[in-house]
């Protein structure tokens, strides 16, 4: 007994045993809270650790009061200050059996806040105490505490052991208005969901709760079933549908109704007859209820459960429009949008009706509402309206705040990319849209746009001319170069204009754009792509120039027909060639060499190497030009022919997309052992080698953002270059009268061209589109170009939409299924449950023992009979509806039949009704729904 002298030794094992002093001078929870509140901000951690040390000592005290206060303090610290309390689980257990209600309550609260079903290892030790407190002889407040703890921290073992103890609490024999029964129902739900094995035991009492006169019990039971039905497969609960329906008709409590509707949302799609029966009460609720929560639940049920019932859908859509129109309640606007997105594309008319409200919501002050509206709009995109919607969104992105602008761009990009651009018909339009997106001042989606530009270039041959045009527009604009988010796009543009230079109208202009002084702002790897593009463009110009000369020579010899062929490309190249003749020497000696020259000493290897290549080419070209002036007959020179061939062969081979599965198709060479252990080679692997490959690999390098290191070095030189460059492209620059010292003061990259009226954004937005959101047939003026797709694996990776069901849910619904259908039990147990519950009667179990089991041979005839009797009773019950749409009923019958055929294993276990009324209705019924529903 070392006394409480050393508060620093806080470790559990070494903490000294508490002394009487500790008990006498223990700080109460109030003291602790006051100390924490009066503490300066920075000192909290030290205070907390001191408090925990104190608690660790006090909690081991043999005095229950001291222990309880320590536990209380720990509970406070753990739940509000996030301190770990799992070490004290045993001490909480120690206090559980205390006879004092005060201590017991504290102990239970502490336990329910700190116990974790899977990590608290002392949990099994609580079984006995819980059982004791659950027993009917203990006072109700104690049982209530135990139920709480059980519902929060039930592990499968605990659930299995304590499930029988829940039975007396669940049964109506316990005092009629006991507050414990609803709690027991909730605890039973938790027990069921952690341990499906107890389903046979607990399911029946839970079903009985539905017919209790006490609304709280019904509410708890309905809540439990709602939870069970929505967390797993709802099929096993279908036999209870009549019971739920009865509660729906009788109950006036909104709390219960909401939960019931949740169940029906899950059940209605499984059973068309149930859906038909639900239409009337739902419409009634929709019309009359004043509680928005209930109305919204009805809307949700109609939209996701009964989308085939036009009357209900119509009414629900009207309610949603009211929601959307409520100007003062953002909650209703949000929920209205959500509800609309539950309706599938089949009901796109509903969205169309509220188009204005939806589009207006894109400008809502609440980002969540905007996002929801965007989501809804993107669901409505089809190939017929993708153009209008994308243009609308991209235009709107110009005006909205940066975060949402990028969400808009994202939405457009991902939607259009879907399934290898399946929505896009007009690629010229899409490519120019990509260019527009790049010019959005907030655009941070450079990588995706880069990927798509290159991807379209590779896949869609017909889009290349437009792609080159768009790329030119991007490259030539010096204002874009300063934006770090755009350099990826520029790199793609440079690559495209180099690779498909044959579509360019003016290759020389491209060279100038690619070598303009402000390219020094680009990261080195993008510059490398730029220089490579220059190389390709020059090589192309050179070879066309030579071709041109050849042609002109030939034509001067008299063969005029060849030279006269005047396709656009040829005239273009002719122009380019003559351009070269005029300006190649000048251009290269000034702009080209001057810009590239310093780069050949760049410390970035990529830039360095490519700049060297380019300079080599230029020097070679120069020589050729001098040959040209000296001698006309140089064409015959073999060396030039060789060079032309070489250059052509270098870039003529077209790059294509590479399949993800390409590697699999490569046959394994003989003698190669793939299983050989490569561990010895680990040191040769760098990080780059192990980087995951993209689904499509290009010949492009991966580019990284970075600062240009040579920017400062070349700033002096570039100032003069800049002046010259500006003179030539005055269009893109500020007036030159400005002070020369501010020469780097370009218009800010992507300065937003904001419209004058920012105020009435929603009105603008609505005006932006007069087009409809619903798909309609549009005649396309030109056919969709061919998009190269490689194989199944291509593009599919963008859809990771497989839903994986938890095995536990399946287990549970399976167990409930068994509990309901009585597999492996006395054959009639299922009937017993549902019959009894449907009539709200408690029957003795033995009573049904003599029920005759139906043989499998009867199944066929039974089915047929059921069909006829089913339709007959429908005539009776639903004559009105039948008159309205007899054909529909026929269809329904068809469906029913299919349905019952599908679930024929239900039939196999199905039995005759054991009781009197069964005799009136001898034909074996469809097992899934009780007869009166038909």
């Amino acid at each position: 007994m070392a006394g409480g002298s050393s508060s620093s030794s806080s470790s559990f094992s070494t903490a000294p045993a508490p002394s009487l002093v500790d008990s006498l001078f223990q700080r109460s929870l109030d003291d602790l809270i006051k100390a924490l509140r009066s503490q300066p901000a920075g000192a909290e951690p030290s205070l907390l650790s001191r408090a925990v040390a104190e608690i660790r000592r006090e909690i081991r005290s043999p005095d229950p009061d001291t222990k309880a206060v320590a536990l209380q303090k720990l509970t406070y610290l753990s739940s509000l200050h996030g301190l770990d309390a799992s070490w004290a689980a045993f001490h909480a257990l120690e206090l559980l059996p205390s006879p004092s209600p005060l201590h017991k309550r504290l102990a239970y609260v502490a336990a329910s806040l700190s116990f974790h079903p899977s990590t608290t290892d002392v949990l099994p030790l609580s079984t006995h105490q819980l059982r004791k407190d659950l027993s009917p002889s203990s006072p109700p407040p104690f049982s209530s505490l135990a139920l709480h703890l059980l519902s929060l921290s039930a592990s499968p073992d605990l659930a299995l052991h304590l499930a029988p103890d829940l039975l007396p609490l669940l049964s109506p024999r316990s005092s009629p208005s006991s507050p414990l029964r609803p709690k027991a129902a909730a605890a039973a739900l938790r027990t069921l969901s952690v341990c499906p094995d107890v389903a046979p035991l607990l399911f029946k009492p839970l079903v009985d709760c539905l017919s209790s006169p006490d609304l709280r019990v019904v509410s708890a039971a309905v809540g439990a079933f709602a939870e069970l039905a929505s967390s797993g497969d709802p099929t096993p609960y279908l036999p209870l549908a009549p019971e739920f329906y009865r509660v729906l008709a009788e109950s006036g409590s909104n709390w219960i109704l909401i939960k019931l509707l949740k169940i029906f949302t899950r059940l209605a799609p499984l059973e068309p007859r149930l859906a038909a029966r639900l239409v009337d009460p739902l419409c009634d609720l929709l019309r009359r209820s004043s509680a928005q929560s209930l109305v919204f639940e009805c809307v949700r049920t109609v939209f996701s459960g009964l989308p085939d019932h036009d009357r209900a859908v119509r009414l629900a859509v009207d309610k949603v429009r009211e929601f959307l129109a409520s100007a003062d309640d953002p909650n209703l606007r949000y929920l209205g949008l959500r509800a609309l997105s539950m309706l599938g594309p089949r009901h796109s008319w509903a969205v169309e009706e509220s188009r204005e409200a939806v589009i207006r919501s894109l400008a809502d002050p609440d980002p969540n509402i905007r996002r929801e509206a965007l989501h809804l709009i993107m669901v409505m995109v089809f190939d017929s309206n993708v153009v209008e919607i994308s243009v609308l969104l991209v235009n709107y992105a110009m005006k909205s705040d940066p975060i949402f602008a990028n969400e808009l761009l994202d939405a457009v990009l991902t939607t259009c990319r879907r399934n290898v651009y399946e929505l896009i018909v007009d690629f010229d339009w899409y490519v120019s849209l990509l260019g527009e997106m790049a010019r959005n001042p907030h655009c941070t989606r450079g990588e995706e746009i880069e990927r798509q530009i290159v991807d379209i270039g590779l896949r869609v041959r017909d889009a290349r001319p437009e792609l080159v045009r768009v790329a030119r527009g991007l490259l030539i604009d010096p204002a874009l170069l300063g934006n770090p988010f755009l350099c990826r796009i520029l790199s793609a543009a440079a690559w495209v204009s180099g690779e498909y230079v044959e579509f360019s109208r003016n290759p020389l202009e491209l060279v100038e754009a690619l070598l303009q002084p402000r390219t020094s702002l680009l990261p080195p790897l993008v510059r490398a792509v730029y220089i490579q593009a220059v190389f390709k463009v020059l090589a192309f110009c050179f070879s066309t120039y030579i071709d041109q000369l050849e042609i002109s020579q030939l034509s001067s010899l008299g063969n005029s027909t060849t030279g006269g062929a005047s396709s656009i490309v040829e005239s273009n190249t002719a122009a380019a060639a003559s351009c070269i003749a005029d300006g190649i020497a000048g251009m290269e000696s000034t702009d080209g060499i001057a810009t590239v020259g310093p780069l050949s000493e760049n410390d970035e290897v990529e830039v360095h190497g490519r700049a060297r290549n380019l300079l080599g080419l230029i020097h070679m070209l120069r020589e050729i030009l001098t040959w040209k002036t000296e001698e006309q007959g140089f064409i015959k020179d073999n060396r030039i022919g060789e060079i032309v061939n070489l250059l052509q062969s270098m870039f003529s081979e077209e790059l294509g997309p590479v399949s993800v599965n390409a590697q699999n198709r490569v046959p394994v060479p003989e003698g190669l052992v793939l299983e050989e252990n490569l561990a010895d080679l680990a040191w040769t692997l760098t990080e780059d080698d192990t980087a995951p490959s993209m689904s499509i690999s290009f010949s492009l390098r991966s580019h990284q953002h970075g600062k240009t290191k040579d920017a400062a070095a070349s700033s002096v030189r570039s100032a003069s270059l800049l002046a010259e460059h500006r003179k030539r492209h005055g269009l893109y620059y500020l007036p030159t009268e400005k002070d020369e010292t501010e020469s780097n003061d370009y218009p800010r990259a992507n300065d937003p061209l904001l419209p004058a009226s920012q105020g009435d954004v929603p009105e603008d937005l609505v005006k932006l589109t007069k087009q409809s959101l619903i798909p309609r047939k549009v005649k396309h003026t030109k056919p969709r170009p061919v998009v190269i797709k490689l194989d199944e694996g291509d593009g599919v990776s963008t859809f990771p939409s497989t839903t994986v069901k938890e095995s536990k849910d399946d287990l549970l619904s399976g167990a409930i299924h068994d509990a309901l259908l009585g597999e492996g039990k006395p054959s009639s147990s299922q009937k017993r449950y549902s019959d009894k519950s449907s009539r709200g009667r408690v029957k003795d179990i033995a009573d049904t023992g003599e029920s005759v089991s139906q043989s499998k041979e009867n199944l066929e005839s039974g089915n047929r009979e059921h069909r006829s009797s089913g339709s007959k009773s429908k005539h009776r019950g639903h004559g009105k509806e039948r008159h309205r749409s007899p054909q529909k009923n026929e269809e329904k019958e068809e469906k029913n039949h299919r349905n019952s055929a599908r679930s024929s294993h239900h039939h196999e276990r199905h039995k005759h009704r054991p009781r009197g009324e069964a005799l009136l209705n001898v034909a074996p019924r469809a097992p899934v729904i009780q007869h009166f529903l038909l």
Partner: protein
Amino acid sequence: MIHFVVLISRQGKVRLTKWYSPYSQKERTKVIRELSGMILARGPKLCNFVEWKGYKVVYRRYASLYFCMCIDADDNELEILEIIHHFVEILDRYFGSVCELDLIFNFHKAYYILDEILIAGELQEPSKKTVARLIAAQDALVETAKEQASSISNMIAQATK
């Protein structure tokens, strides 16, 4: 179902937490940090729902306190708002125009009240009167126990004098 209930003050201080689904202490701290960042940043006159990791968090501000409840995606948000209001009304009735300090110093009572309203993440008691009655009964039980204890200790103390 409700996965957890968290009360956060405008300054980001946690005033009450109750977890109906199993979360480890680390996860709890992380969840609270993330949510308070998201919710406290939202201005007034926005909707009361936040999407968070496939769940929805319904929150409502009363004076300086944010009452937040996390629910499944297919649960009814408006119903949860009503539950929150229900809880606040009961607190109000119990403490007599409740304020943040009441919750700070009567930390356990707030839990007892919450436990009478929600069990296993479901609403169990929609009647304010009943909750008030149950809590009063429990308090009375505890009070008598306390009195007994103190009187015994008094007797002992006097006897040992």
